[in-house]
């Protein structure tokens, strides 16, 4: 069957590729419009963020809730079953020293935590100015907190980022993103209308609702990733099946 379909596919692909613009010379009309509109009318300098949080903010709302729903799914599947129980914290501290990590690794990871968190925060806040934005910064933030794990302190991580707090932060981020959209409906003309003062391009507080959107998404993404990771690590490190009597 493949002998029949293969050449056909190849022929169609060749036909399609022949008509592609040559490398580096594609100047699509949409790209030109975005480059023109966003700087002049929205005072944003990072076009990717401008696209995500302004021109197609509604699509980002969809993506936001895809992430939200999938993390909820992970949490649901990895819940504690009836015949499972979690090792208590004290017991775990006694028995389990996560990884026989060398002192150098521990020190380095601990030193990495503030750097990563600061960088993540920077990327989130400067979303509309420099490359990055809510999603990218949120992931870096989550990784920063996770570096505590590499330092061999999984339980410290659990204390630092309690389950309930993560869930609340995730919900808060998702909800505030939606609410900013509603704000556009209330104060502007349409859902996700950019209703805040635009300020001046290059300033920290510019481009209207974009920094707010970026912040909301950053919080949601960071919490979502930490939640997923801790769910998995809980399963791997703490949860075990009760022995049958």
């Amino acid at each position: 069957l493949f002998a029949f379909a293969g050449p056909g596919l190849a022929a169609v692909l060749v036909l399609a590729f022949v008509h592609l613009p040559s490398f580096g010379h594609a100047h699509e009309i949409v790209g030109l419009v975005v480059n023109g509109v966003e700087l002049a009318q929205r005072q944003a300098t990072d076009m990717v963020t401008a696209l995500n949080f302004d021109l197609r903010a509604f699509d980002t709302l969809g993506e936001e809730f895809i992430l939200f729903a999938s993390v909820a799914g992970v949490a649901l599947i990895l819940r504690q079953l009836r015949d499972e129980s979690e090792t208590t914290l004290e017991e775990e501290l006694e028995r389990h020293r996560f990884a026989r990590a060398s002192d150098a690794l521990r020190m380095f990871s601990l030193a990495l935590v503030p750097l990563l968190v600061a960088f993540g925060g920077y990327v989130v806040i400067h979303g509309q100015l420099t490359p990055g934005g809510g999603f990218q910064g949120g992931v870096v933030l989550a990784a920063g907190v996770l570096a505590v794990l590499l330092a061999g302190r999984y339980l410290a991580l659990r204390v630092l980022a309690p389950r309930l707090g993560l869930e609340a932060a995730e919900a808060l981020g998702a909800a505030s993103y939606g609410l900013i959209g509603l704000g556009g409906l209330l104060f502007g003309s349409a859902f996700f209308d950019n209703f805040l003062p635009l300020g001046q391009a290059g300033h920290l507080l510019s481009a209207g609702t974009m920094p707010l959107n970026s912040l909301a998404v950053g919080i949601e993404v960071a919490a979502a990733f930490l939640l997923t990771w801790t769910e998995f690590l809980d399963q791997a490190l703490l949860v075990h099946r009760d022995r049958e009597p």
Partner: protein
Amino acid sequence: VSALQAIGLVLVAAGGGAVVFTREPLRQALVLGVYGLSLTFLFFTFQAPDVALSEIVISAVGLPLIVLAALRKISAHEREREDERQR
């Protein structure tokens, strides 16, 4: 296509093959992380720093961590079963 971009493309092609041809899951998770780094390099040379930034965290930390946790859970599960059989 500049030299850096060409290097990136070759790296990604080789890395993708390496991931597929690594049979052992544990090793595969680590190779996948390295492959993600080459993808990051590719995105960066093609002027997409936004994508590169998220790719580097997802591929180097996010995905391998989940795979490793799952592998550990599975091996613990199998050990448990082995114990039960012996009793």
